[in-house]
């Protein structure tokens, strides 16, 4: 791995962090509406995963999608514009925070109904199998999503039809305010894969290098076996589920501990410096540059036009009557 690749990972992680922090400010200012699910604390997960996917590998995730969107190559300003509901946004202001996508980048969104995108992922992998394309569909979802029927049906189908899907569960310990063990029969989510005889693995999601390695192995297995693999990624959400979460379900101490001991940015920063891949100064410089990038993104979004009123009925059908 080249130095610039290492730095690019850091850049993406810090970019996600700063975009999210900005978003939370803009939300408080009332410039962002609806739900806003921040990815802060989980940056290493999507950054590590997407860093090893090939361009033909498809990516689909849930509503906590800003990080994945950025990793998949949606510019910060386009993400920010979507958050502000502008015509320049990823979904031209129609989708908002939960529905970002960039099909050209093979990123299929951004889905807000818990678990409902898993069957879609199976179908995408079916297309690739049908067309003889050697691509993997990477489908990400939360721990809470593994309790809904869609999860069961999709995993079963992927195994029965030997579909090249890499199922990735971001286990951040909670589904909204419900701790995993209060909602799931098994706390080790990977155990669920056993019910389908789908090979599985579990990795520390706060260390981007570990996530990267585990994903690489998983992708190889999928390509080799031409059948699904299940990867559980252990991580933690530093912020509330969405904005305005009372957070009665966990103590401030618990959150503090994770922020202090397990910050994916801190861990990777240390890794880069300790291994003399780069200096702290370089990283500071990179952070400053990224900060600038985010400020520009906000300006771009704020100065972008709203979607035109006359376009309200655009995009309902490909062939309207």
């Amino acid at each position, binding site marked *: 791995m080249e130095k610039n690749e290492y730095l690019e990972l850091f850049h993406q992680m810090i970019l996600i962090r700063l975009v999210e922090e900005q978003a939370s400010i803009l939300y408080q200012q009332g410039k962002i509406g609806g739900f806003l699910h921040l990815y802060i604390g989980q940056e290493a997960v999507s950054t590590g995963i997407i860093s090893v996917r090939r361009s033909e590998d498809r990516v689909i995730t849930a509503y906590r999608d800003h990080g994945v969107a950025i990793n998949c190559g949606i510019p910060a300003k386009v993400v920010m514009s979507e958050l502000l509901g502008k015509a320049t946004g990823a979904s031209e202001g129609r*989708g*908002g925070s939960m529905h970002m996508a960039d099909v050209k980048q093979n990123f299929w969104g951004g889905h807000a109904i818990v678990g*409902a995108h898993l069957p879609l992922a199976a179908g995408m992998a079916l297309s690739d199998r049908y067309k003889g394309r050697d691509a993997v569909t990477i489908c990400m979802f939360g721990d809470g999503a593994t309790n809904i029927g869609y999860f069961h049906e999709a995993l079963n189908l992927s195994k029965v039809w030997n579909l090249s899907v890499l199922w990735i569960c971001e286990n951040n310990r909670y589904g909204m305010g*419900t701790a995993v063990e*209060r*909602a799931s029969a098994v706390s080790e989510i990977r155990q669920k894969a056993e019910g389908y005889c789908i090979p599985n693995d579990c990795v520390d999601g706060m260390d981007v290098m570990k996530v990267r390695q585990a994903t690489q192995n998983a992708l190889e297995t999928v390509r080799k076996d031409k059948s699904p693999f299940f990867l559980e990624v252990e991580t933690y959400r530093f912020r509330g589920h969405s904005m305005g979460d009372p957070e009665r379900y966990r103590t401030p101490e618990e959150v503090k501990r994770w922020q202090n001991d397990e910050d994916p940015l801190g861990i990777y920063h240390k890794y880069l410096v300790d291994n003399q891949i780069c200096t702290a100064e370089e990283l500071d410089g990179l952070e400053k540059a990224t900060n600038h990038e985010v400020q520009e993104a906000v300006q771009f979004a704020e100065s972008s036009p*709203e979607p035109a009123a006359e376009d309200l009925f655009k995009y309902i059908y490909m062939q309207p009557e």
Partner: protein
Amino acid sequence: MARITMREAISQALWEEMERDPDVFIMGEEVGVWGGSYAVTKGFYDHFGGERVRDTPISEATIVGAAIGAALTGLRPVAEIMTINFAFSAFEHIVNQAAKLHYMFAGQMMVPLVIRTVSGGGRQLAATHSQTPDVIFAHFPGLKVVAPGTPADAKGLLKSAIRSDDPVLFIESATLYQLRGEVDETENLIPIGKSKIQRQGKDVTIITYSKMLETSLKAADQLAQGGIEAEVVDLRTLRPLDMGPVLESFKKTNRAVIVEEGWRSYGVGAEVASRIYEEAFDYVDAPIQRVAQKEVPLPYNRTLEQLALPQMEDIIKSVREVL
């Protein structure tokens, strides 16, 4: 009489019924520790405990399905589906199980179940999370569908729903929880299946329910300043549909505007209009108007979303057209 919010009224109804009857319990996502995603059950978990205020996994079909099983066997569950959009994931159990077991087994089984859920747009939650599909649930005999528009009705109807031996889908509005209204302290059970005149008038009849009652009443006040007295009829229950007060009012005004938050095509307004024409044909002086949501999946962008949702101005405009 106390002036309380819709949220408080619903919360009180639940609290009082749970105090009254130990067989009443709540189950749903985030109803317990979190206190309800709309804070309706705040404090319930600490007071009633985890056995009676049960946080569930994200399993809508099984939230309703298990609640049906509990209802069949002697309990009175109040199952919460966080929003009506997620009720699509429980659709089979709501319309095909809860609504049919009593009939299909010739009365051997009864389903004293309340499913509380939240309908409506206007909160920039985008297409999958902003719907008002109340009408599709009202299409199924065997189910009762209640959708109150005032705190007093919400409290009285929810209590009746909990005591009812039939399955009731109780639809709240996402943007009405802060609405304040008079609610008497003394218990007041409002019967399910009774429409109500919420504002007297002689010139035109506005028929509506839930969130659009608030908007319609505002429109009526505006119109009053122009000397037009609109009578506002609140359906309150979509099934069984009580046309009594609607027809009574219409036979007096001979003009009607039906207002709903959901999409126009195959909506509530279509049924109500058809029933008026069928049952009061000779009283019709002008084509009945329907005010509803524009036929588009609701966009996130606030301007576009508001453009798609029915506004007070649309009601006023329609009223002027029927006059």
